[in-house]
């Protein structure tokens, strides 16, 4: 079965598209509560997206067609990679051997165009953000391969759906493996989704931003595409993380789905807590932090390899 097309597969896709702004709303609400504010309503991200579609689009005078193309490519790539993620036992629309590689590289394509879109303006701010994004992405990529990749190597499956379904939590070795993998996956998520302690999405100073400074000169529909794709990206990584612990998905779909939702909620709480408690790292120390996450992955895999022998 090369590419599996099914009606059921639409469910994860629509779930990701529909719920991802709510996930961000949940994180923001909990952050507000943790800092003693009331905060914006849960639905605020939806309103923000809607507002952006009604705004006029302004391009910098220095911008070429790359600025017009970049948001579309970034959004399309994230959208197509979201077609490969399963939720619970539901098989996604795109599922074939080796889709974990396609998934990682599609996100890479999105990043490449986001960098080009930023550099197209010719402003130092965007240049700085793009350089940081590029640097950190280089060190984030290995983490992906050490978490999901190692699961693929160990389980012998190369499709995300099959990998998640080969996870068994009854064996203590694999339980330890999964727990440690999910820690480095959490590091990856914070990096890729430009959250604290890597990037501060709410800062007011351009010099300290990464993701936000890259899209300074985007507005209207382009900004809509960038924002929405960043929401979807958070959702993708949240699913990626939450699906690690889903022992019931095969036996009991509804129980599995409930566990999955609970895991998502716990994850939002964890993100909100981390973002409230930890200050942003110095830019210089971020590669060290990412290498640390990679080292956890290597260590984990070594333990697994030797225990299995």
């Amino acid at each position, binding site marked *: 079965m090369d590419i599996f097309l099914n009606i059921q597969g639409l469910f994860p896709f629509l779930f990701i598209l529909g719920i991802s702004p709510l996930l961000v709303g949940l994180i923001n609400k909990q952050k507000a509560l943790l800092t003693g504010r009331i905060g914006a309503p849960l639905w605020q991200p939806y309103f923000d997206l809607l507002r952006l579609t009604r705004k006029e689009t302004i391009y*910098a005078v220095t911008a070429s067609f790359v600025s017009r193309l970049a948001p579309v490519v970034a959004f399309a790539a994230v959208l197509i990679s979201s077609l490969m993620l399963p939720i619970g036992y539901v098989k996604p629309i795109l599922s074939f051997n080796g889709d974990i590689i396609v998934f990682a590289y599609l996100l890479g394509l999105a990043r490449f165009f986001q960098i080009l879109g930023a550099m197209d303006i010719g402003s130092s701010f965007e240049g*700085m953000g793009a350089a940081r994004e590029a640097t950190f*992405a280089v060190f984030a990529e290995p983490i992906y391969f050490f978490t999901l990749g190692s699961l693929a190597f160990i389980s012998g499956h190369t499709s995300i759906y099959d990998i998640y379904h080969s996870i068994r939590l009854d064996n203590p070795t694999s339980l330890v493996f999964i727990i440690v993998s999910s820690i480095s996956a959490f590091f990856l998520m914070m990096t890729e989704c430009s959250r604290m302690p890597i990037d501060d999405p709410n800062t007011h100073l351009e010099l300290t931003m990464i993701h936000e400074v890259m899209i300074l000169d985007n507005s209207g529909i382009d900004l809509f595409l960038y924002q929405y794709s960043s929401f979807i990206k958070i959702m993708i990584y949240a699913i990626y993380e939450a699906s690690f612990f889903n022992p019931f998905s095969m036996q009991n779909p509804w129980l599995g789905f409930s566990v999955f939702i609970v895991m998502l909620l716990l994850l939002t709480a964890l993100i909100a807590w981390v973002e409230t408690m930890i200050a942003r790292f110095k830019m210089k120390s971020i590669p060290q932090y990412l290498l640390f996450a990679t080292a956890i992955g290597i260590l984990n895999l070594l333990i697994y390899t030797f225990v299995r022998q």
Partner: protein
Amino acid sequence: MIEFFVADCMLLALAIIVIAVSRSQFVLNRAAHGLIAAATACGLAFTTRAFFFPTPPVIVLFAHPSLGTISLSFDKLSLFFLGLIQCGGIVSSIYGIGYLSHYEQTRSLKPTIAATAVLFLSMQVIVIANHALLFLAAWELMALAGYVGIVFEREKEEVQRGSFIFFAAAHVGTLFLYLMFLLLHQQTNSWEFSAFTHQAYLPSAITTIFWFGFIGFGMKAGFMPFHFWLPEAHPVAPSHISAVLSAVMLKTGIYGLIRVITWTHPIDYFIPASLLFIAGTTAIFGIWNALAQKDLKRMLAYSSIENIGIIGIGLSLMMFGLQHQQPLLTFLGLAGALFHTANHFVFKSLLFMSAGTIYHHYHHRNIELMGGLMKSAPLFGGIVLIGSIAICGLPPLNGFASEFLIYSGFFEASRSLSLYFPFFMLTSAVALAFVGGLAVVAFSKIMSMVFLGSPKRPPEHDVHITKYELVTLSALALAVFVLGLFPQIVVGWCEAVYRDLFPLSQGLSWSSSVGTITSVGTIAVAVIIVIALMMIAKTRLAARRSVRTSVPWGCGYTALTARMQYSGTSFSDDIVNIAGKALNVHHDIHLPEIPLPATSSFRTNAADLVLNRFVEPAGAFVSWLVEWFKWLQSGKIQVYVTFSIIALLLYLFLAFQI
């Protein structure tokens, strides 16, 4: 059908005659390049036919009683590389017309065009030669022609230096090939390639033959630590020659390496494991060095080193497969290597040729002083953008398809081979992902500095791109799309090569891997369709609201100038610094020492680690050593004759002793 091949050789000879007799530079440029293109096109017709239909017989050139039969043979592997070289001949000679037309008034084009013709003749002979002597003769001829091609702007010091390093490296490499062939001859008592296969070699001989072959061919292909000539020679050659050197000539090294592997079948663990290690290091080192450069063509040369590393990873997977008799792994490794070879040919030709057009626009190669070409030449910029996406190995274009095969090889190796393979294969996969990430930075640096932003210096004129250049570049960009959207075509060719090379392993099911590569193509098509549809929808939607332009955000500061843009060195600075001493980047900072404003300067220089730290000191040491024998060189003929007589007497004495 063989007539086409004969026509190929005849037309190349005719091209040389035209070069010799032509008086007008204008006619010479078009006629000679046209003939080379026609010759290689004829050859390509032959190759295509021969590849898909029963292979043509061996052409015997010359039979010698003691040396054996000097002949040309056409198996599928040879034909694959022959086709690649012929495609290279067509594109580079058509582009060459446009590139050299800038020099028609100022310098003689004869040596360069003649070198192109000889280069293509010799490269074609290399991949079909069936005799060690013919192979070595063509190999030497290729080095010589390459040298003549590189020294086009011969008055420049960097050209003299780069071409010399190329020539020296080529000859050191050839020396190891002589040793390899001598060993093969000693083992098989034959000089013919067909006799080298299916031989029972001694295990110790296999190791020596392989490593001699690896040094000889690896020197040409550019594996670490023999890569040092690429970043010196490729930037200084005229761009169509750089494209040939990088996209085609390096592949003769890969061809040779595949031949050595199929002859000797190295069976111990050490060889494939160390090849995997060397190839991985080559890839990481190559692309990391590319990041540190400012010279556009030097960056591209380092990126070639990276791609050779990726091809080498495929070859080492093939060797693991051969060792463990895992046909699928062998196939994935070979197909990954061959497909990446073809892909690298397409996008590296595109990028090197574009670099030539950029060089003619700016008259220098420093990317820090470029910028903003995307607005003045959107079509050209779009073509280079396509090449950049492809070379980063990003979907939906062709670079991704071949890297995907190599990743599949990693998975297959860890699935089918036990022991610690999962761990090592995963580490290799992570290394490949890391290389991909670095490539994204390198090529976003090139795109940003050359095409995006605003011009760092006011442009003197618009980008002038001749129709020859435009045709070639568009054809290559189209090829990038075709190979990316229909990767199963090339994988089918690789399968034919595989079945021809390893006829014993019939009856295998590829369906899973070929099916998977088809889905990669389908995804690529889907990505392009989705992007196109969304682009249309977005433009419509934005037009319904209002669209306008304004100055970029400068934090309230409104007097932004082009010099305030982020420079390429700053863009890659973080990553380059992490590498530390391994990149051999020198910062030369002069700060003012007094409080009042004074002149200050900042320079960075990224010289090659191996060349700068090892090869050049070694060369200096040899020169120093040779100084000691300088007294022998008196310049007096009588003394030299005396030396000869002494030597002769010594020989005679030794002969009688024995």
